[in-house]
């Protein structure tokens, strides 16, 4: 063989081989005690920045809030260590339901051994609400007195307010640090209000005149280190906001924390147990900065687990946190969360035993799984606190007429949609709020009635659909949404004789259209974050940015505001019921179906409970391969 040929063969064989050996080198891990498919790569492990369930599963394992929610019903835990309570050992609620005093357990520690204190929670709340963090879920903290005012930076400040001015960081300091704080009293803002349009407001530099110890100073949000200019006579700062001492969270002593709410909020404890309000370790954040503080070797956590290994789009390996106060009740030493997106791949791995729990088998197999004979011992769909619905832009021609909106709803055959298009365990929906809130009676719309639908559309001036302007159903490009939209189109066309078109857009364009209300009928889904009708009904008050229907009703807004102030729990639910009755009668939205969870869980996984939030904390799970009893997941299954 000539040297030239030898060379080329070497090149073709040796280079790939070297590359392969190199990549495999770091790829091998012993299997974890429990492996589950988290369905997607997580955005972050930073509680303040999480925005979805996959992140939530990890954050819930890494960090621990004042309150923990039970693995069964997802309600605040008040019992002993075996019931999985949070860092607060106990709490007291004032009579008006607005002041909560939390007593923190003294043995709670961070993974580096530092004690978990009330100050950690105050710091984390400040960070969560700070306009500089730009937390998407910040609204969850707005139930605190002045929470919204603090997050909104200068927007709602008025002369006389105590303010804190956060100065720019020194060059080279991590962005996660808090700049030096200058406290004072706001004297005036120039200009006093900023334009509503985001692009217009970008052009204006607002000046804040602040009295600091009797001296007037003018501050402008600008950063010379980024090449921005400081206007004459002004000082540069990072942000001007309300003094955080005015926000309803106070440290009494290292183990006592008080939260003060603007309104009695019966679900406040649920929110505290919801992962965005979980704390972070200040020292860790400030020492390493973002994103380095989330590295397995740097991160400091206070929950049952810490990160052992992480490879993007492959897995997050959770390892038991030996400094966790309740470590004796953590039974899984290691847990792997995979990021497999394709449901078929996920099911393959599940069937072959590589994965113990998947959240979603492929939709086209749901029927088969549900009707399998003998019944499966690892599949048990349960009602979920979410609704799939269409919303109507009431500013669009005929849709402004209530009779037309009602006719559209009456013409729908929801059973047929579920049977033909959805093909799963979902249930037809006639209200926005899903079932499952104790003490709450849903306000419903009428079931299918083609005759009445035709009559209403005739009364509105379109007998047999004559003269009805064609309407368009907007949805984001996805097989499942298309199937539903096609069926709805068919039902409307056949029942009402109207012309319906479909329009699918990629995710960002679809969102833009909804936001700018450039649509007729839009697909929407909403999954509740906590078990309370408010998480759904609040969406349709006039100034909610998720309303997006141009529907605005004073009576409705008043009812929701009344409910916010109501201290009696049952009376509050009754007011919310009236609000939903009104919403359904007005019909800016057409509910289609209620979600069902579709988990597949292997029989040897224990401590996994079906619940309406479809949230399953990892710390309560264990593995039992003896097969002596049916696991908790399957106990509620129909025989």
């Amino acid at each position, binding site marked *: 063989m*000539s040297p*030239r040929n030898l060379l080329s063969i070497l090149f*073709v064989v040796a*280079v*790939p081989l070297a590359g*392969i050996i*190199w*990549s*495999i080198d770091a*790829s*091998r*891990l012993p299997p974890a005690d429990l492996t589950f498919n988290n369905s997607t*790569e997580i*955005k*972050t*492990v*930073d509680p303040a*920045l999480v*925005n979805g369930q996959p992140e939530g599963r990890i954050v819930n394992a890494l960090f621990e809030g004042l309150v923990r929610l039970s693995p069964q019903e997802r309600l605040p835990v008040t019992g002993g260590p075996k019931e999985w309570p949070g860092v607060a050992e106990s709490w007291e609620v004032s009579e008006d339901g607005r002041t909560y005093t939390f007593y923190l357990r003294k043995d709670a520690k961070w993974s580096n051994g530092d004690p978990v204190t009330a100050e950690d929670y105050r710091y984390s709340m400040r960070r969560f609400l700070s*306009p*500089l963090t*730009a*937390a*998407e879920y910040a*609204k969850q903290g707005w139930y605190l007195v002045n929470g*919204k005012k603090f*997050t909104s*930076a200068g*927007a709602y400040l008025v002369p006389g307010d105590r303010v804190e001015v956060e100065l720019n960081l020194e060059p080279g300091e991590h962005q996660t640090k808090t700049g030096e704080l200058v406290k004072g009293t706001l004297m005036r803002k120039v200009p006093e209000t900023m334009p*509503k349009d*985001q692009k217009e*407001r*970008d052009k204006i530099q607002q000046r804040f005149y602040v009295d600091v110890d009797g001296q007037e100073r003018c501050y402008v949000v600008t950063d010379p280190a980024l090449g921005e200019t400081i206007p004459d006579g002004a000082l540069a700062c990072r942000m001007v906001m309300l003094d955080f001492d005015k926000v309803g969270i106070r440290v009494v002593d290292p183990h006592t924390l008080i939260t003060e709410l603007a309104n009695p909020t019966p679900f406040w404890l649920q929110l505290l147990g919801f992962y965005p309000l979980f704390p972070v370790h200040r020292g860790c954040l400030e020492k390493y900065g973002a*994103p380095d503080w*989330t590295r397995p070797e740097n991160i400091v956590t206070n929950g049952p687990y810490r990160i052992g290994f992480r*490879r*993007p*789009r*492959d897995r997050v390996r959770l390892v038991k946190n030996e400094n966790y106060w309740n470590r004796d009740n953590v039974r899984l030493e290691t847990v792997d969360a*995979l*990021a*497999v*997106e*394709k449901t*078929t*791949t996920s099911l*393959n*791995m599940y069937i*072959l035993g*590589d994965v113990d729990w998947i959240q979603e088998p492929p939709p086209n197999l749901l029927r088969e799984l549900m009707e399998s004979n003998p019944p499966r011992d690892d599949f048990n769909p349960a009602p979920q606190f979410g609704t799939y619905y269409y919303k109507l832009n009431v500013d669009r021609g005929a849709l402004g007429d209530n009779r037309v909106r009602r006719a559209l709803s009456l013409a729908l055959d929801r059973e047929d949609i579920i049977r033909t298009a959805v093909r799963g365990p979902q249930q037809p929906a006639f209200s926005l709020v899903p079932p499952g809130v104790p003490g709450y009676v849903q306000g419903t719309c009428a079931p299918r009635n083609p005759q009445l639908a035709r009559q209403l559309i005739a009364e509105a001036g379109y007998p047999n659909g004559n003269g009805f302007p064609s309407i368009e159903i907007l949805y984001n490009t996805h097989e499942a949404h298309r199937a539903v939209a096609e069926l709805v189109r068919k039902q409307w066309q056949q029942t009402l004789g109207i012309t319906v078109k479909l329009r699918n857009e*990629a*995710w*960002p*364009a679809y*969102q*833009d259209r*909804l936001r700018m209300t450039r649509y007729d009928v839009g697909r929407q*889904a909403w999954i509740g974050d906590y078990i309370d009708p408010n998480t759904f009904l609040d969406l349709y008050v006039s100034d909610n*940015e*998720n309303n997006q229907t141009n529907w605005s009703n004073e009576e409705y807004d008043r009812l929701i505001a009344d409910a916010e102030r109501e201290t009696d729990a049952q009376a509050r639910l009754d007011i919310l019921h009236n609000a939903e009755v009104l919403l359904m009668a007005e019909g800016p939205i057409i509910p289609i179906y209620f979600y069902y969870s579709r988990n597949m869980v292997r029989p040897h996984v224990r401590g996994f409970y079906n619940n309406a939030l479809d949230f399953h904390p990892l710390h309560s799970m264990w593995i039992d391969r003896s097969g002596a009893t049916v696991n908790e997941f399957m106990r509620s299954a129909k025989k």
Partner: protein
Amino acid sequence: MIAYFVKRFVWLLLTVWVVFTLTWILANFSPGTPFTSERSFPPEIEANLRRRYNLDKPAYVRYMYDLDNLLRFDLGVSTKQVDFTVNELVALCWPVSASLGLLALAWAAIVGLVAGVVSAARRGSLADFSLMSLATLGIALPNFVIAGFCILLFGFLIPLLPPAGWGGPRYMLLPAFCLGAPYAAYIARIARTGMLDVLSQDYVRTARAKGLSRRAVILKHALPTAVIPVVSFLGPAVAGIITGSLVIEKVFAIPGIGYSFVQSAIDNDTPMAMGIVVLYTILLFTMNTLVDAAYTWLDPRVSWDDV
């Protein structure tokens, strides 16, 4: 030779700049923002987010920021995976795609070349017919179909290999086979055409006439010229295959970078999309440069001045 590489390097810088600018314009003027999600934010939170992502600044200022960062090889933090910088994501995911791609290409090149040469040498025979039918099948079948068959066969019917995941050599075999199949088919066809072309040339007849064996003529005299079209194909193919495949990575749950090629654009993850575009530009340009350089080596008629 040095002048050639210097010239190409200058062109590379220029190409990267042009591609970067075009992509930047597309990315920044397409609908949506990095924080478009199912929920809309109150105007206060949206204002905070806009400031955080510098969206409150005029476009040319943002462009200059981004260009400046590119010059310092700092592509920023991915907006969809905020725990990683783009550089880290590339450093962690690209080797996975690259090793899988190289393995796929290695088998594709070896099998394809052998099949092509054998077909050409035995033109019209049963071997030629079956090999070329197989190659047509390889080109025609999308690799997710091949993947489906492979998983069914080796995952379920003969449970030898894991159906998906990443964690050892076993995990690479199925995806590498599926990824390489269409390439092997292409290479076989190109090699066959190239070989047939060369075999009809005068110098081959001369070699035969001076008494060399058929085997020696094919391997020693015809092959180096016949592989030139294959090498031209391999250049861009290497750049393509080592940057991963969305389909293969999804079907086999492989943590490579191919997924980001498509998903970062859909997600409005501009920093990641920019990083990938720059990476791919550099790779493609480098591979094409190497291919051109290889001509001088494979074909004595081509000199450095020609390429």
